[in-house]
């Protein structure tokens, strides 16, 4: 390949990489953690104050009592088949609308058969990490953060193509070479190349799907505008908004719906192998009886992060809408669902989730190593042209390359641990988790900027190790001994303990390097001390 092409694309790769790299680190680190959103939610959620859920056969008794005492639940209530700390009751309902959700209520039956209702919410820390992932860590409104994320996703796509073009000429020579030795830049480059190339399909998938997640509304609007050119306009009149809310339906009407156990049986007959998780019973004057079902099937990828969706007739149990249900889709819908599934890694069960977790962490490391390479190559040029001091740009970027990733790691760990310590009755737990994350994150970034890359590198790695160790420590100290243990919560603790140990090892290595490493490196603490002295 012509060298001028490679040179051009090397420039492109460096610049898009340096602009998008830190945001992508946050997206990938947080994204790797969302692979275990459900275990994390279970770990973080407080023990319910409700009595154990009634069996499915006894659920009609609970439903009758809920509907009699809480008419607002008659229009829509949910029956859950998978119950744990993250979903603490057999029956739940919510006030408000889909756009403006109100309070969610959970109900159970006391041993004497009386109705118990709780508004104690499961932890929202997993959603916070999901939002950090979706918005590449930006603390803005969704509408503002998403286009920025989309722009970063487009840069990411350019970075992938330009990186491959740079690598192509020396592919055979460099691919299996991992030259650990005197030349540290060579080693980092080899590592960056091998990681990037072997996870290339994963990165292509992530870039293309993220562009869609960011811009789907804009794409749809533009396409609809084109399709409407010259077409006869059909005026669609929706139901008048803002009218008086529909009165709750009469109890006698709702009795036409099948009891949950029978409905579950009939759905199972139509979809063998489908693991049903939630059924909603809904009724309004316009649509009559209907319901939504949620669940998964490890043999298929699904449309949501962890579940597929469908509609049933709650009087007959017939599935009326299966376009988003695993195994019920036509080829076109199955193809669309597969795009979601390859982003969420929700097919094939645990092995795929673990692979996505590893690929996500490897991706985060890829962006970190890219930043290091940018700094290293700029440093060299400066030395050749005679400059002794590193430029301010190199110093600041060096500090951010340390502060942003480690701030993100420490912030996520602390806010997860805080789930066990924040009082359960606190108003707006979600915003508390958000505040804690951004406080730790900002502190780490400021620390890195103030102390410089070399010294803060080791210090912030220790901080990240300590913050991550807080997760298993929080398990041991909070809530006392009544806490039910499960594989899911053990998984969270083991992964956190392993992460903390890894960060501590890295901290020791970074400390060694800042003392013993080459003095002209930006990672050397000896030189910067000499400069200030």
């Amino acid at each position, binding site marked *: 390949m*012509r060298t*001028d*092409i490679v*040179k*051009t*694309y090397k*420039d*492109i790769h460096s610049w898009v990489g340096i602009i998008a790299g830190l945001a992508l680190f946050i997206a990938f680190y947080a994204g790797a953690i969302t692979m275990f959103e459900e275990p994390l939610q279970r770990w973080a959620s407080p023990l319910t104050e409700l009595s154990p859920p009634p069996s499915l056969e006894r659920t009609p008794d609970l439903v009758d009592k809920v509907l009699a005492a809480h008419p607002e639940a008659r229009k829509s209530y949910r029956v859950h088949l998978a119950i744990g700390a993250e979903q603490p009751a057999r029956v739940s309902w919510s006030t408000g609308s889909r756009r403006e959700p109100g309070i969610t209520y959970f109900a159970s039956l006391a041993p004497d058969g009386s109705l118990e209702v709780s508004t104690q919410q499961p932890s929202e820390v997993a959603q916070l990490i999901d939002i950090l992932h979706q918005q590449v860590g930006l603390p803005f409104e969704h509408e503002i953060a998403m286009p920025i994320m989309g722009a970063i996703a*487009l840069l990411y*796509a*350019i970075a*992938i*193509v*330009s990186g491959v073009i740079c690598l192509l000429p020396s592919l055979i020579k460099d691919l299996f070479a991992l030259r650990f030795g005197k030349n540290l830049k060579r080693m980092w480059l080899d590592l960056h190349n091998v990681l990037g190339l072997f996870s290339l399909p994963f990165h292509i998938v992530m*870039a*293309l*799907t993220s*562009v*869609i997640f960011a*811009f*789907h509304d804009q*794409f*749809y609007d*533009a*396409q*609809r505008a*084109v*399709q409407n050119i010259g077409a006869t306009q*059909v005026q669609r009149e929706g139901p008048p908004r803002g009218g008086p809310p529909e009165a709750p339906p009469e109890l006698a009407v709702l009795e036409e719906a099948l009891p949950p156990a029978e409905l579950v049986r009939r759905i199972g007959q139509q979809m063998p192998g489908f693991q049903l998780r939630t059924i909603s019973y809904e009724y309004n004057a316009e649509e009559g009886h209907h319901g939504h079902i949620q669940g998964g099937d490890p043999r298929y990828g699904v449309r949501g992060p962890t579940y597929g969706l469908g509609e049933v007739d709650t009087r007959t149990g017939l599935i009326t809408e299966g*376009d988003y249900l695993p195994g019920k889709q*036509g080829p*076109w*819908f199955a*193809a*669309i669902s597969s*795009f979601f599934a390859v982003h969420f890694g929700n097919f094939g069960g645990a092995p795929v989730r673990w692979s996505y977790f590893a690929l996500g962490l490897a991706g985060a490391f890829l962006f970190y190593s890219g930043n290091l390479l940018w700094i290293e190559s700029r440093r060299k040029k400066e030395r050749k042209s005679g400059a002794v001091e590193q430029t301010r740009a190199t110093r600041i970027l060096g500090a951010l390359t340390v502060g942003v990733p480690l701030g993100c790691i420490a912030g996520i760990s602390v806010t997860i641990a805080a789930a066990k310590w924040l009082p359960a009755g606190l108003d707006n737990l979600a915003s508390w988790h958000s505040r804690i994350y951004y406080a730790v994150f900002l502190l780490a970034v400021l620390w890195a900027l103030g102390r410089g890359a070399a010294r803060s590198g080791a210090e912030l790695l220790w901080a990240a190790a300590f913050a991550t160790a807080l997760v298993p420590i929080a398990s041991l100290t909070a809530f006392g001994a009544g806490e039910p243990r499960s594989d899911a919560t053990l998984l969270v603790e083991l992964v956190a303990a392993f992460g903390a140990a890894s960060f501590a090892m890295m901290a020791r290595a970074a400390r060694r390097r800042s003392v013993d490493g080459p003095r002209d490196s930006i990672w050397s603490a000896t030189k910067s001390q000499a400069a200030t002295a």
Partner: protein
Amino acid sequence: MSDKELTSRDWFGKASAAVVLGFTLTLALTCTFAALFSRGDSYFTAQGQMAMWLSSPIWCVILSFCFFFRSGIQAWTWLAAANLIAWSLYFGIRQLMS
């Protein structure tokens, strides 16, 4: 094909062409796909969704390869020409299908 070496200097001319004209080209191509395969008036059919999903790979390819153009002016000219062809194709097919 060229005696002039490719550089990254005129990146803004090329990238802006790929952002603006690349997007309209993507729109023409994906709407052509929808016109060919989508049935019914709802734009949210599976085929309609597929047309929306195709926007991402097409636009990303244009953005990634636009730096092969030798100058910003070339990028704008070629992409404008491609737009003209793609939009003619789209309206032609719509005429035929109706």
